[in-house]
């Protein structure tokens, strides 16, 4: 997986996170989805559906337990995209 792909995913995710969080804050690798962006389970599920559509992937719910930061999220998507 190249850095470029990481960045490309990051950019798409950044826009999506801001849209769902309805916040204007800088999104960084260590931004926390719950503590910094105020995601609750409902919002997270809605956003995951959109992520599945954008990247044409299935996001297994098991991955949620390791999803805290934006970096976790991008890496998870990168891995799923690479694996499918």
């Amino acid at each position, binding site marked *: 997986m190249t850095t470029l792909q990481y960045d490309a995913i990051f950019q798409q995710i950044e826009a999506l996170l801001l849209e769902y969080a309805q916040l204007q804050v800088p999104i960084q690798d260590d931004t926390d989805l719950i503590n910094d962006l105020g995601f609750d389970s409902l919002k997270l599920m809605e956003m995951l559906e959109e992520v599945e559509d954008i990247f044409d*992937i299935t996001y297994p*719910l098991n991955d949620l337990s390791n999803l805290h930061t934006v970096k976790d999220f991008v890496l998870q998507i990168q891995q799923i995209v690479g694996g*499918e």
Partner: protein
Amino acid sequence: MGLLDKLDTIAATRETLLPEGINPFDVVIEEIHSATEGTIDGHRVVLAGTNNYLGLTFHPSCIEAARETLLSEGTGTTGSRMANGTFSGHSALEKELAIFYDCSSAIVFSTGFVTNLGAISSLAGPGDVIVLDADSHASIYDACRMSGAEMIRFRHNNMVDLEKKLSRLGPKCKNTLIIAEGIYSMLGDCAPLVEIAALKRKYGAWLMVDEAHSMGVLGEHGRGLAEAVGVEKDVDFTVGTFSKSLGSIGGYCVSNHRKLDLIRYISRSYVFTASPSPATISSVREALKVISAEPQLRIKLWENVDQLYRGLERLGFELGSDPSPIVAIRVPTKENALFAWKAILDKGIYVNLVFPPAAPAGLSLLRCSISAAHTPEQINFILKTFADLKPMMTDAI
């Protein structure tokens, strides 16, 4: 941070959510008079949110069966199904359930919740995949987590999404269990089971249907949605509860796969919890007979559904689904739901208040469940009350 600090957040949420004097989650039914009437806060109310679809909690023969067993076998089994908690009634009920469903195997658990925990987590494990509907009951979600299987959610009743997810699984489909519900507990809508069964066949997956709210309600014999839409042969495992149409407590899993019997040895919620009391089992056995012997109860239930549903439609309410014994009224905000719920109770009707995440898609709901035991007069009373309170239920606060 101390152990209990996280509960402060709950306390704060409760404060903002529940203005003084209104706590819909702390209701005590001080007296229960019948399947459709009780006393709450000193007032006699019509119960319209109890899942008591056939009204069997007060059926004379169910009460008599339980009473006789209570006197002859005592108050409890004091043990798990695996140890000293299987009495002849438990075994007989399993045989009767197998006959009722025309299946080879049946297992009785202590509740519907632990049925799902035990059955799902034993049938699927690491290396397997579970594909579940997004609106699945909490017990299904918890069971999937316990199983260690890969857990994939498809959008509620969305067959395009289900097919996408199955097609991506490829050969893993033969280790994949799809889970859907007959009638979904919050909105009262049915699963598109004919389509789900077709996808199950096309991809070679397995199918489990939770008929908790549809058993006794749908199908010629009351077996549920799979019977009603003619796909019973495609359903590998049916799970359900004794706590709704059967008017008692407990749960079951039935199947034509004889290996189902083996999950008794590995289902932790079968092995490590006490079995239903003998009197409970007797009332369920009798209720199962009543479902078969008194199909008019189902007819009456659907007449009542029709009366309430059409009435609410005429009043212009936004309802959760097509007609079903669960009639969920969508209200604009949590505040609407809360104040309307209290006003409805003050006028003498108990319904369920449901907030997200218990309600799907961020909805706030006033959820009614209808019983065959409701009288036309009670339903008219519900309709009149809802008509009087309509602004509170529909104009956003």
